[in-house]
């Protein structure tokens, strides 16, 4: 807990800086540019691919229990993605988005937070939700849009959300969660809660106006948000060098007067360390932080695209050598916290569980027709109610055309 009144006050020195900054700058008498890349940004790396730790690296707070939970979450993530891409290919679900090769960003982010912290994700951060304990059944029910989906079958697969687990429901429009995170965190701070908001987005979404709006709002209003950019090199087919000309996304944090750090996004220990540090700062100072995690989207953007149309096998092969899950496994083995027998058992068990869960969820009924009109407002207005009555009469008249609902009209 921190003192709310104090933390909202503008630091006197900083205030003076805002108006006097130009006077404190060096003065020159010939026109000269400063370079667009003049800010040098270091990249944090803690864990090597072989499972050893860099010399002088400072470890995050992590014990065997947290490490095991984190690793098991990564394993679950990989298996679920693998199986659900296959399920989509078999025509069992309409759509899927895997996070192959960049699972450490979402799982490590959640591992560095506390349960009361809000997670506002873009869409490829199911790993954070897995870490929080969203059940396999919940994932499946959402993907199959059945009547047990918490979202009532209203959004395409992978648009998860859970109030109980502080994971904001995903919204397809890109970047809209960024200014929302600034507001959400402002509310947490107003209430004096020991809680922050983490806000995930990609380097592509960082081109949206909402990115600039959100970072500036959070900086100016001192919201405890951790802005977490997953720079995975691609926005669907557009490579990052066609997305921006600056020094990644991290350089923009400096422009907004925000504490910023860049990390190796495939290094789970660097992710946890960065988020733990950012969380501590955000709670204590009541201000935002920007983290840019450098990674690579090894899979397709979604099951609706094919990366062979815009990048080479060689490029992908290079990044396969930086697999974040294998990296963590190597570390776990070196720690003596994991062994190959456990590995085999875990992956076999997960594959069986996922397959079994698919078979259950795909048989569960679609949501009742009432769910068409609930939650548009807190209560359906009269006009909507009368539209619904007309619809029910229509379905009764042509039951064969509406097989999911015809037999269930009340």
């Amino acid at each position, binding site marked *: 807990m921190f003192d709310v009144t104090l933390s909202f006050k503008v630091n006197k020195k900083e205030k003076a800086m805002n108006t006097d900054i130009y006077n404190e700058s060096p003065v020159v008498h010939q026109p000269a540019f400063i370079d667009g890349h003049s800010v040098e940004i270091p990249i944090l790396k803690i864990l090597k691919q072989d499972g050893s730790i860099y010399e002088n690296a400072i470890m995050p707070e992590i014990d065997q229990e947290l490490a095991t939970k984190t690793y098991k979450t990564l394993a679950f993530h990989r298996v679920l993605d693998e199986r659900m891409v296959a399920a989509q290919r078999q025509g069992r679900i309409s759509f899927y988005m895997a996070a192959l090769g960049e699972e450490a960003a979402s799982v490590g982010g959640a591992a560095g937070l506390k349960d009361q912290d809000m997670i506002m994700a873009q869409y490829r951060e199911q790993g954070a939700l897995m870490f929080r304990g969203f059940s396999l059944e919940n994932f499946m029910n959402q993907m199959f849009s059945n009547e047990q989906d918490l979202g009532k079958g209203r*959004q395409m697969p992978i648009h998860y959300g859970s109030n109980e687990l502080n994971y904001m429901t995903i919204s397809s429009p890109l970047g809209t969660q960024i200014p929302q*995170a600034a507001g959400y965190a402002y509310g947490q701070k107003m209430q004096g809660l020991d809680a922050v908001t983490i806000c995930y987005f990609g380097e592509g979404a960082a081109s949206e106006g909402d990115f600039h709006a959100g970072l500036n*709002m959070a900086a100016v209003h001192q919201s405890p948000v951790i802005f977490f950019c997953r720079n995975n090199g691609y926005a669907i087919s557009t490579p990052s060098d066609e997305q921006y000309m600056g020094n990644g996304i991290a350089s923009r944090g400096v422009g907004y007067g925000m504490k910023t750090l860049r990390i190796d996004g495939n290094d789970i220990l660097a992710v946890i360390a960065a988020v733990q540090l950012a969380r501590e700062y955000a709670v204590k100072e009541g201000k935002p932080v920007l983290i840019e995690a450098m990674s690579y989207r090894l899979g397709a953007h979604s099951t609706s695209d094919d990366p062979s149309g815009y990048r080479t096998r060689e490029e992908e092969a290079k990044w396969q050598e930086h697999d974040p899950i294998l990296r963590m496994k190597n570390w776990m083995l070196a720690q003596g916290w994991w062994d190959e027998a456990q590995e085999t058992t875990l992956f076999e068990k997960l594959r069986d569980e996922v397959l079994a869960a698919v078979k259950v969820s795909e048989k569960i009924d679609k949501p009742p027709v009432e769910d068409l009109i609930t*939650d548009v*407002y807190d209560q359906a207005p*009269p006009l909507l109610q009368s539209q619904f009555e007309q619809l029910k009469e229509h379905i009764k008249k042509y039951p064969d055309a509406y097989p999911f609902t015809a037999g269930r009209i009340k």
Partner: protein
Amino acid sequence: MAQMNLLQAINNALDTVMAENDRAVCFGEDVGHFGGVFRATSGLQDKYGKNRCFNTPLVEQGVIGFANGLAAQGSTPIAEIQFADYIFPAFDQIVNESAKFRYRSGNEFDVGKLTIRTPYGGGIAGGLYHSQSPEAYFAHTPGLKVVVPRNPYQAKGLLLASIRDDNPVVFFEPKRLYRASVGEVPEEDYQLPLGKAEVVQQGSDITLLAWGAQMEIVEKAAELASADDISCEIIDLRTILPWDIETVANSVTKTGRFVVSQEAPLTAGFASEIAATIQQECFLHLEAPIARVCGMDTPYPLALEKEYVADHLKIYEAIKNSMTY
């Protein structure tokens, strides 16, 4: 009861809410110490502190994005967009986010506590970017409520209801009336119902419908008609979405004639939606075609504003045409 102008009534409503609910927060461009360019939030920062009434950077999508987040968190954000003409950078946050927050999450999350206040409308020599009436854009979005008051008493009661309503509300304030409209407003707390139109004058020959600043114009036209012995029933719609079909349909069933007037351009304006519905509800009772008296299908003019607007004479002509059809 106190005499207040429309701005004072708004300010009084905000004061009422901020006093009772310490999670109510007012913000927007110039809203803080200065009290807003129209002074609707005047004095609130002094009274409730900089954390609860503050200036934002000049970024409408940021203002509404921030407000959506605050509302989802359980606070009560009352966000101001300085002019309705400048609401469009926030259109995505309102239409794709505020309006769909509850629905898309299956009620796991909602932004029901959100209220967006914005001055709208012409008649102030504001030209094309300080005069628009964009209510129809928002009326096309399920999940939003859209409210427009006509005078200070209505403004306070409807704003209090909007803030406390558990749905996101876009509250359009008729800026031409901000200081021009003065009336009795109770100091104490009261609410007026959302989704309910009000019959402000009983009549038997023809029904006239409008909202916001256009009410005054319609009333003036009714006075002219009254000199011709035409008895007008006048209704203030008050809530554009969801709108009160029943009150309007009952009136038109009684009078058999109907003129609806709006400031916004004719084509695809909300008057068109009303005309279509009333035609369906009251078809066999209609003695004449429904008339829409609206702004022309042009951007809002400046020098030729007087010619452009749906003024009392154009409405008066529509009334006479309907009576003699």
